[in-house]
């Protein structure tokens, strides 16, 4: 469901490598910025918060969920976008668990819709087989294929 939607709505991005985790966060927001769901300032707020609080958005090794508070400034819709980095980026050089190659960027202005999104995301992130395959995706068609296989 969610993976298919990400592919069909063009809310996904496949990138070889980035210079820094900051660049990764800006890029991960781009599909939603292009749709007008996020302002560019949203990425900067995430970056500021990670600098203050640490890389808590890397929720399991390899996977980041960049997000701000609900109804944060710069968010105009409830949505998720996906980004895959071919080369993982490090958020903390001293902790290899805090590297990420998969990004699910979250935007929320509607609690109920957001909860629905998060339930789907939770189901995906707690499925180790799906997660292992997700680490290998290269194009939107791969997302659709995984959606059909797992969801």
């Amino acid at each position, binding site marked *: 469901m969610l993976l298919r939607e990400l592919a069909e709505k063009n809310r996904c991005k496949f990138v070889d490598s980035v210079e820094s985790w900051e660049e990764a966060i800006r890029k991960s927001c781009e599909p939603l910025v292009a749709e007008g769901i996020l302002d560019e300032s949203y990425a900067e707020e995430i970056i500021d918060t990670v600098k203050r609080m640490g890389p*808590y958005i890397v*929720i399991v090794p390899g996977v980041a*969920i960049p997000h701000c508070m609900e109804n*944060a400034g710069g968010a105009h819709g409830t949505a998720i976008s996906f980004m895959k980095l071919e080369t993982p980026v490090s958020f903390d050089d001293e902790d290899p668990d805090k590297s990420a190659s998969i990004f699910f960027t979250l935007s929320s202005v509607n609690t109920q819709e957001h909860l629905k999104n*998060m*339930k789907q995301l*939770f189901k995906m992130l*707690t499925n180790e087989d799906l997660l292992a395959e997700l680490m290998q995706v290269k194009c939107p068609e791969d997302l659709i294929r995984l959606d059909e296989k797992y969801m």
Partner: protein
Amino acid sequence: MAKLLVACVNGAGTSLMMKMTVEKVAKELNLNVTKIHHCSLAEGKSTATQYDIVFCPQSFIHMYKDAIEKGVDVVGLRNVLSAAEVKQKLIESGLAEKYKK
């Protein structure tokens, strides 16, 4: 009966994930949970003492020093999606037994 709080930085992403993990484990361990609330660390800091158990990522546990001193059980999690970790910590701390239905 236990009232649970899950808290992370924004109260919108990670804390929701943690809430789903905790809900799953509470069911598995047959705990008598009357309420699970998720919120931001800042909100949690001022309301923590109204709860029996507070969950937060391990790296933020220092923010709940006051609550711990006042007798609230605060559980820090390395992996907020790991039901196995939540389960293990609730059992080892005796909380699973204390709040069993």
